[in-house]
């Protein structure tokens, strides 16, 4: 009988790591608090930089779960150290005794309503990146009457100490540009603005996407952070920012505003960290033994990380790290003698 490994969090990192662990001869026990596996990826429509369908990445993973015991709608009630093992009790009453736990607890999208000045939850026409993704997925962008101008606000809840997140969420810039292009493809007549502080097009082909947004779609980029949003008598939005390249304040009437909510540490992560006594970073993400050399190994025996639980990452980075974590677990289990 093969050895069990508990994987907490059934997003791309958890699923991928489970598959790799199974391939290495272990029995992963994958725990997901939501009713379905897939995490944020299950909600997303298309992925940067080429616009492949999120489904085309996730579906093959979900069709390959043989040999993985997974529990959805399930949370971890407690984790206790017993000699060199961890005893994991689940909310469904089951428990497992394992030598290794993988924390792939992911991230939560920044709660846009925290940026009160942007009026999310107050103005109907202010939506989030995830909601726009829902609309793309449903195949229909809701038609506010006469949408002529829309805006994307970068760095909502990212690089913002006042919002409690100093870190850059890394993927929102390119997501905004991707969504802007998609929007223009569906509605070429609409004028699209992106309000950015810096455009962090770090990945391969990201810059190409940016160029495409400028050249082919005429997306207008305004360097300046949106300061406040208000509503006029017809329900249009008034957006204020500084055009920092121009050196003047700027005000623009918009028909819709998309907030690029960043990545914040997942709600449940601190509790899990407490259960296995590992430290949390100042930024709320988990801290690996070495952020450079051992990004998926916790400073505690038998605890491993994968994906965005240790900070914002792209899907390919997450999948790569999931495989690395599986190998690290395998090495750990093989090198520590089993009693």
């Amino acid at each position, binding site marked *: 009988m093969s050895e069990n490994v508990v994987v907490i969090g059934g997003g791309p990192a958890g699923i991928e790591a489970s598959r790799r662990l199974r391939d290495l001869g272990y029995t992963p026990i994958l725990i997901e608090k939501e009713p379905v596996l897939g995490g944020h990826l299950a909600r997303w429509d298309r992925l940067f930089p080429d616009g492949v369908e999120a489904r085309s990445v996730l579906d093959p993973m979900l069709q390959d779960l043989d040999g993985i015991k997974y529990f959805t709608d399930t949370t971890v009630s407690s984790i206790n150290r017993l000699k060199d093992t961890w005893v994991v009790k689940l909310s469904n009453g089951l428990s497992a005794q394992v030598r290794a736990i993988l924390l792939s607890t992911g991230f939560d999208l920044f709660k846009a309503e925290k940026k009160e000045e942007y009026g999310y939850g107050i103005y109907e026409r202010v939506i989030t990146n995830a909601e726009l993704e829902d609309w793309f997925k449903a195949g229909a962008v809701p038609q506010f009457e006469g949408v002529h*101008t829309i805006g994307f606000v970068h760095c909502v809840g990212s690089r913002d100490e006042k919002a409690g997140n100093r870190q850059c969420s890394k993927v929102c810039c390119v997501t905004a540009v991707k969504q802007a292009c998609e929007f223009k493809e569906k509605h070429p007549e609409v004028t699209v603005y992106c309000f950015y502080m810096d*455009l962090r097009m770090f990945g391969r082909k990201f810059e190409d996407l940016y*160029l495409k947004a*400028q*050249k082919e779609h*005429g997306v*207008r980029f305004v*360097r300046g952070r949106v300061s406040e949003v208000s509503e006029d008598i017809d329900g249009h939005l008034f957006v204020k920012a500084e*055009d920092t*390249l*121009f050196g*003047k*304040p*700027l*005000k*623009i*009437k*918009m028909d819709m505003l998309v907030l690029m909510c960043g990545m914040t540490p997942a709600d449940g992560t601190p509790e899990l960290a407490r259960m296995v006594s590992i430290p949390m970073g100042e930024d709320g993400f988990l801290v690996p033994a070495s952020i450079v050399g051992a990004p998926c190994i916790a400073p505690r025996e038998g605890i491993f990380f994968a994906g965005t639980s240790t900070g914002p990452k792209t899907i390919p980075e997450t999948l790569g790290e999931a495989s690395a974590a599986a190998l690290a677990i395998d090495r750990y289990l093989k090198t520590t003698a089993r009693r």
Partner: protein
Amino acid sequence: MIDFGYGLTPSATLRIENVQNPLFEELHRREPDVAKCIACGSCTASCSAGCFTEMSLRRVILSLQRGREKEILPMLQHCMLCGKCQLVCPRGINTRHLILSIGKVYGPADQKEEVRP
């Protein structure tokens, strides 16, 4: 009218939604590169006329994008078309043609009809 010794100051705020831009579209048709600027400022930094004047191609492009075409003439009239900006532009913008095209699309709007094919 009473003279209070002060009065309303015009707003400095840019209102870009009112930018009705057939001219910019015409410029874009002539030189699509105008959309490629990433405002790095290399052109301005290397500008031969920039040694002596406030000429800044980056600023010219931005002004046009923001519908402030009145602001470009004081800058563009100093351009010597030497092409250094074209050499340094990281986005490969055809800056000289852009400048020549601006000269044809914008500018004091009286004057001659374009040669039509």
